[in-house]
């Protein structure tokens, strides 16, 4: 039977509150008696702290408390790191519980990046707290800094952590080095490329914030925080950092203003506001500024790759090899090291059947802001590299780039396909994705358009990107092998109320993904209850089941199935009660349109609401059946899911100025089954623009001393509305067999191909100038210099 609600573009339930400015974010919460905390951060990327003098600050108007790292010794432990490079030896800062550490919330003697905290002030107002920061005197002995992994790994490089010799966190590999090298040695054609997948700053529009309360009567804390993983952060804060009972901390993550990978980490401010709330017995709020955000919240990408692709003259790729230096920053972020290794390394073969592949990653600590995930993390870096190589290979053998791709795609009939690096692709039709994109682009007509552009003094380039983006983190046993120190299942509960309302509680937490609406659509479809009568509760550790949170395109394909399967449990129980009421056997029952009836006797039925009521009254229910209608599911997927796509960018370059204009962008995506196409398109739009930002505008720039030059939005360019084309979207649907919805991750796939599509288009446009490669971002200056290598 056709779906009525699921798969329909219904309007979002969460929108009116946002649109009227009535939806609270952390910064919007005011509590009686609330005081404000500010953190003093190191102005140096690398220094010894000789002394800190807080005496003047403590006397400033309104100041309630000033602390340094010394005040935390013995009262707080370092933050932990819970995703380490899997299967290899790795070195970390220490943690007393024998897990990897990530540094104390405030440093006592050694600062390692420009955001490292050295003191914290609480005052009656935020302005007073900021005034007091300026009165704190810190005597630093500045040390030499390293900002790139290569420099950090060099002999005699400055050392960041005593427990990490040579600054090497891990040397991680996947694939078969020997067979890959042999294939490259034997190859007819070899193309090599050095790439810098530049460091970026995720830049959600809401900076982070944290607000803690402490009740001295019950010893209970509440933490309001802009986090995308409230349950995990509660566990980490209680067990690894503050040494308090899990039952004493409740985390509420109110509305979160975007994250893109930055708000899934435990940051120093969280234990600090909790500490201060307990010390002062008042609510304590910390709200970051944009500059503070850019200097202390995790950043993304930052892989220096040396890549080699080998193949035959007739276009068959025979080997792919990558050596990457990943820049972890000064400390491991909560899940940073795992992101920098597996998510990139295992993804380099993309949609292609490549007989021999190998990837090695040197993950190193440097005096920069810690590295974390950014939308499409790992997969975007892998795709940019491989897709650039495929185009260079096509140019080398004189074949159309589309044809080279066709000759190497994993075919739909090959599924499930083992890529040899650790991913087992579930389903997909990579050739169809590309053919549709080519048709939409009018690929055959593009040479004529290029001529036309040239006649206007401009150069038109077309760039293809085909990709696979592992999503839906993930099967827990598998993630254990990848170095994840914890389960990665997801949880959901559903309760049918006697009034006909349904409430679902989930561990997953939205920050723009539309949980309230799309999850209600799943339940509505399964239970026949109107979407408006279904409430999705989340974001509060009190009253929701433990869940891992929203990251890695996992909410819909992990929390979604948990809800779907919970509906099964609800219907199974309701069926027993319905059969009892109808004096029928449960085997004879049919459930349709929110109503059970006896098979073949449509008029002999009972609605789910009536059944729910009967279970609620519990005056006459079957033996062995408990009252009320409520169920919970903990869902661990059997494997990841593998969304895929083909994207085509058309860019026009002005050779006089180096300006790159994006003319068209086509994205054909396979995200499996879609819950709400309107929301899906929105995810694609945002994802694509995220990739376009990296391709055209964004770069975190550090000077040699480790100062972050691009630390405001004046100096870090984000994409704006002007200059973006209308996005041409299309979908191919290959349901994943790995969950009952058939849904794959979607939040990141717009991003994953976009840098490669634009990069390939730009290099295509500049072909006549002999330009082989340009590193992102493709600023006019860089493009102009590539066109004019000897100057104007």
């Amino acid at each position, binding site marked *: 039977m056709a779906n009525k609600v699921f798969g329909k573009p219904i309007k979002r339930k969460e929108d009116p509150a946002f649109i009227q400015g009535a939806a609270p974010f952390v910064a919007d919460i005011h509590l009686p008696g609330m005081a404000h905390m500010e953190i003093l951060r190191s102005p140096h990327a690398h220094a010894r702290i000789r002394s800190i003098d807080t005496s003047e600050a403590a006397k400033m108007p309104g100041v309630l408390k000033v602390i340094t790292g010394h005040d935390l010794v013995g009262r707080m432990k370092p933050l932990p790191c819970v995703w380490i490079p899997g299967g290899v030896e790795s070195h970390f800062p220490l943690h007393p519980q024998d897990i990897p550490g990530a540094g104390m919330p405030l440093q006592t003697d050694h600062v390692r990046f420009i955001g490292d905290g050295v003191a914290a002030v609480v005052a009656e107002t935020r302005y007073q707290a900021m005034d007091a920061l300026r009165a704190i005197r810190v005597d630093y002995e500045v040390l030499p800094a390293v900002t790139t992994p290569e420099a950090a790994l060099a002999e005699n490089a400055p050392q960041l952590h005593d427990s990490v010799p040579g600054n090497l966190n891990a040397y991680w590999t996947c694939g078969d080095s020997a067979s890959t090298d042999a294939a490259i040695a034997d190859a007819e054609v070899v193309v090599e490329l050095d790439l810098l997948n530049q460091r970026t700053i995720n830049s959600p529009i809401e900076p982070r914030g944290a607000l803690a309360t402490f009740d001295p009567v019950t010893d209970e804390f509440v933490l309001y925080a802009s986090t995308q993983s409230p349950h995990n952060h509660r566990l980490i804060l209680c067990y690894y950092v503050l040494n308090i009972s899990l039952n004493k901390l409740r985390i509420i993550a109110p509305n979160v203003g975007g994250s893109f990978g930055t708000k899934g980490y435990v940051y120093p401010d969280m234990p600090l506001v909790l500490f201060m709330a307990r010390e002062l017995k008042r609510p304590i709020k910390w709200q970051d500024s944009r500059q503070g955000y850019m200097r202390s919240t995790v950043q993304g990408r930052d892989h220096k790759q040396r890549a080699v692709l080998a193949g035959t003259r007739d276009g068959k790729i025979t080997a792919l090899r990558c050596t990457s230096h990943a820049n972890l920053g000064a400390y491991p972020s909560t899940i940073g090291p795992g992101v920098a290794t597996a998510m990139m390394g295992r993804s380099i073969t993309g949609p292609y059947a490549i007989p021999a592949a190998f990837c090695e990653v040197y993950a190193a600590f440097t005096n920069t802001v810690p590295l974390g995930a950014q939308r499409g993390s790992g997969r975007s870096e892998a795709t940019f590299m491989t897709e650039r190589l495929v185009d260079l290979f096509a140019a080398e053998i004189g074949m159309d780039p589309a044809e080279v791709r066709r000759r190497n795609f994993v075919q739909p009939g090959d599924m499930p396909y083992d890529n040899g690096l650790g991913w087992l692709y579930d389903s997909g039709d990579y050739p169809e994705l590309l053919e549709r994109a080519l048709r939409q682009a009018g690929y055959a007509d593009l040479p004529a358009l290029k001529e036309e552009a040239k006649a206007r003094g401009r150069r038109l380039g077309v760039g293809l990107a085909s990709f696979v983006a592992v999503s839906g983190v993930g099967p827990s046993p598998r993630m254990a092998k990848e170095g994840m120190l914890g389960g990665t299942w997801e949880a959901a509960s559903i309760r049918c109320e006697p009034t006909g309302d349904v409430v679902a509680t989930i561990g997953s937490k939205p920050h723009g993904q539309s949980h309230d609406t799309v999850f209600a659509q799943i339940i509505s479809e399964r239970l026949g209850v*109107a979407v*408006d*009568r279904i409430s999705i509760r989340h974001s509060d550790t009190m009253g929701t089941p433990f869940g891992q949170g929203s990251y890695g395109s996992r909410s819909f394909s992990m929390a979604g199935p948990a809800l779907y399967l919970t509906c099964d449990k609800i219907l199974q129980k309701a069926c027993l009660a319905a059969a009892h009421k109808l004096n029928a056997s449960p085997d004879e029952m049919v459930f349709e349109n929110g109503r059970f009836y006896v098979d073949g006797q449509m008029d002999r039925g009972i609605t789910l609401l009536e059944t729910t009521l009967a279970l609620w009254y519990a005056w006459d229910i079957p033996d062995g059946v408990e009252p009320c209608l409520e169920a919970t599911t903990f869902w661990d997927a059997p494997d990841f899911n593998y969304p895929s796509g083909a994207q085509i960018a058309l860019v026009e370059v002005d050779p006089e100025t180096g300006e790159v204009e994006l003319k068209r962008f086509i994205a054909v995506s396979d995200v499996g089954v879609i819950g709400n196409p309107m929301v899906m398109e929105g995810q694609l739009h945002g994802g694509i623009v995220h990739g376009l930002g990296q391709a055209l505008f964004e770069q975190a720039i550090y000077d040699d001393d480790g100062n972050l030059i691009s630390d405001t939005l004046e100096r870090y360019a984000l994409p704006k509305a002007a200059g973006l084309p209308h996005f041409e979207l299309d979908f191919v649907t290959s349901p994943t067999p790995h969950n009952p919805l058939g849904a794959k991750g979607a939040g990141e796939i717009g991003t994953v191909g976009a840098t490669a599509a634009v990069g390939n288009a730009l290099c295509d446009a500049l072909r006549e100038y002999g330009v082989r490669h340009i590193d992102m971002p493709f600023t006019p200056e860089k493009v102009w210099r590539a066109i004019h290598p000897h100057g104007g």
Partner: protein
Amino acid sequence: MIVSPGAVVPLTPDPNTHIKIAVDTPMKRFYEEHVTLLDRRDFETLVRTHYHEDARIVSTEYLVNGHAELFKHFAKYTGLMDYLKVVSTDKWIESEATFAFEATARTQWGLTRVHDAFWLRDGRIIRHFTGSIPLVRFVR
């Protein structure tokens, strides 16, 4: 009130208790004809004979102005009709050129109190206000 387990009546009232209005005044006749045309989906006749060329419908859900928009509106309204059943007409008032009523209706969201007010010019509707209040309010 004693509620027996099978008595789900407070939550799902009997759909067959639609109370018809006795046809005894010009406005009631007009309204009865209005409902009949709606039920028949005869929007062509409805718009032409019951709405003035400059008629407007004003509600919190939609704003409709003139015959062209009215035709479009009622075409869309067909879908809604499947979900909307009047259970009872609770209040009625009319004057020479106006009438208004309140009724209880059943929609996909449950029981709803609807109210409609009409101002007629030359025997056709020139302004039509309509609103509804769910009997049970659902807070998100």
